[in-house]
């Protein structure tokens, strides 16, 4: 019953509150004498947004930077000790290695498969249906995707019927011994990556497919007339023309690969050497209660993402100049 009241209050109350704010602000500003109103008005419209951005993004980023130079309970300065931990601790080194693995494999597979599906489906009549099938997992949470794939990789001892799809299919091969895919490092990381690839390939496919449709067909027709094979056509003409879209897809995949958490948390709970930096931070925060270590991991992630940030800013400024 309480929850019902909460729901009602929220659905009616929040919009009312927000519309009320801007109504009051506008009313107050328009009553101000002449000049003052023009100066203060934009800031009143921006104020709620700037407030949230400052409290939840700017202030905590600065705060995390500060905490990364303090000890576990954030009281005494420890210099660079937390960063030394990030780059020397044995478990952290595995986490960093796994991030590297994700970065390369996940990006390569999502962009590669996305491109393959986009190019292939471009040539058939049931393109729309095939594409929405591959895109479908994007709707699903990584938590659910992890359950789905954990079930796919399920292992039963040899001699009993395999209920995991992968082991069952491979058991059709004579002499195959079922494997516990998620247990044995470092290969188990690849199976975690497969789950994430299943989700994100559809995304790469959609943006690459859109770019593909943007290439004028005359260009390809001309090459065909000149006797180019389909293979040459793809590598010499289509692929270079897709270059900027591929670059965008890569940056988005890289950002995701660096910060991914859910798949590791749900599929293996960070066991069997599958932890990555995001998972390690969670552990430092809630298991070890070491805020210094956790903050340093956060800063390292931010630094790793800075090149993408710079890339985005540059692309934005280019777009603005052509507006």
């Amino acid at each position, binding site marked *: 019953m309480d929850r019902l009241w909460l729901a009602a209050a929220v659905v009616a109350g929040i919009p009312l509150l927000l519309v009320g704010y801007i109504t009051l602000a506008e009313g107050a500003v328009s009553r101000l004498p002449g000049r003052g109103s023009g100066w203060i008005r934009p800031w009143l*419209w921006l104020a709620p947004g700037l407030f949230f951005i400052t409290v939840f*993004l700017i202030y905590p980023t600065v705060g995390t930077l500060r905490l990364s130079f303090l000890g576990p309970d954030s009281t005494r300065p420890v210099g660079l000790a937390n960063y030394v931990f990030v780059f020397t601790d044995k478990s952290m080194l595995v986490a960093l290695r796994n991030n590297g693995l994700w970065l390369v494999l996940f990006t390569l597979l999502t962009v590669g498969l996305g491109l393959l599906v986009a190019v292939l489906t471009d040539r058939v009549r049931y393109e729309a249906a095939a594409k929405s099938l591959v895109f*479908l997992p994007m709707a699903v949470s990584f938590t659910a995707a992890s359950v789905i794939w954990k*079930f796919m990789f399920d292992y039963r001892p040899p001699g009993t019927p395999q209920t995991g799809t992968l082991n069952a299919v491979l058991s059709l091969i004579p002499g195959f011994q079922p494997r516990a895919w998620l247990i044995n490092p470092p290969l188990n990381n690849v199976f975690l990556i497969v789950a994430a690839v299943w989700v994100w390939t559809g995304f790469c496919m959609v943006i690459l497919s859109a770019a593909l449709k943007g290439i004028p067909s005359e260009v390809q027709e001309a090459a065909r007339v000149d006797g180019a094979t389909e293979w040459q056509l793809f590598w010499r003409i289509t692929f270079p023309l897709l270059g900027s879209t591929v670059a965008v897809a890569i940056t988005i995949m890289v950002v995701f690969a660096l910060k991914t958490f859910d798949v590791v948390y749900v599929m293996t709970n960070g066991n069997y050497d599958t932890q990555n930096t995001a998972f390690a931070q969670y552990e430092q925060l809630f298991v070890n209660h070491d805020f210094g270590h956790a903050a340093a991991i956060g800063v390292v992630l*931010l630094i790793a993402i800075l090149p993408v940030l710079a890339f985005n800013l540059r692309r934005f400024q280019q777009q603005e100049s052509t507006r």
Partner: protein
Amino acid sequence: MAAIELRRAAAVPVAPRLERRLGRLPLHLVIVVICALWLLPSVGLLVSSFRPPQLVATTGWWTAFHPPFEFTLQNYRQVLSTYNMGTSFVNSLLIAVPATVIPLLIAAYAAYAFAWMRFPGRQGLFLVVVGLLVVPLQTTFIPVLHLFVQLGLAGTFLGIWLAHTGYGLPLAIYLLRNFIGELPKDMFESALIDGAGHWTMFFRLVLPTSVAALASLAIFQFLWVWNDLLVALIYLGGQPSVAPVTVTISNLTNSLGQGWQLLTAAAFISMALPLAVFFGLQRYFASGLLAGSVKG
């Protein structure tokens, strides 16, 4: 274009046409295999969630298609009542709806100011918003958590609404500013001549003409929050009374281990709403996701 193709098709004699069809067989084969690979895991999940426990534990889900055809709703009943999925589903809604409405409206105010008002620092400030798009949430957790603990917001719905608002804003402001900035200038000028103030222009002109953009963004933000696990884990903790579906499922994977009939049912419950959105609002879904993907 179509006429040319028709003529060409008519000109090709039957035998080479068959040959061409056969030549395209590998293409179709590759596509069908990829589609099957993509569909198979979800089908396995769905089928298993309707099978009795003893069968799920001892036989593969594909054997469900042989007689005896044994299916049951028992798994759903059990996870919804005994394993907290019913409460969690409501929690997810209670979290996701406000966490979509609040940032959207606030972002629309800010986007309107960025697009149609002149003030010093406008460009610089917007550049900051673009930069914040990819800042990893991991860089923000600790100070915000400290703040929440001091204010008593940790473990509350209010806290997670505010957090999702903060995290969702840069993207929402960025997209809406681009969209609202593209609206025709004449529209605003004629409204000004008619004596309309900013309030009227925003609520009578900007919002109604931006419905498509707002819908795409709303769907993106809603699914983002609905599917989120990490932010909920950090700010809500593990209490079952406030846990959304994602947190409950991740707890179940630890506690149930091999209880696949329950895990699959729970996972499917969490997927039902996003899938309905996917099939019902596919156009907005795709455009929202594409636009939203720049988010960090």
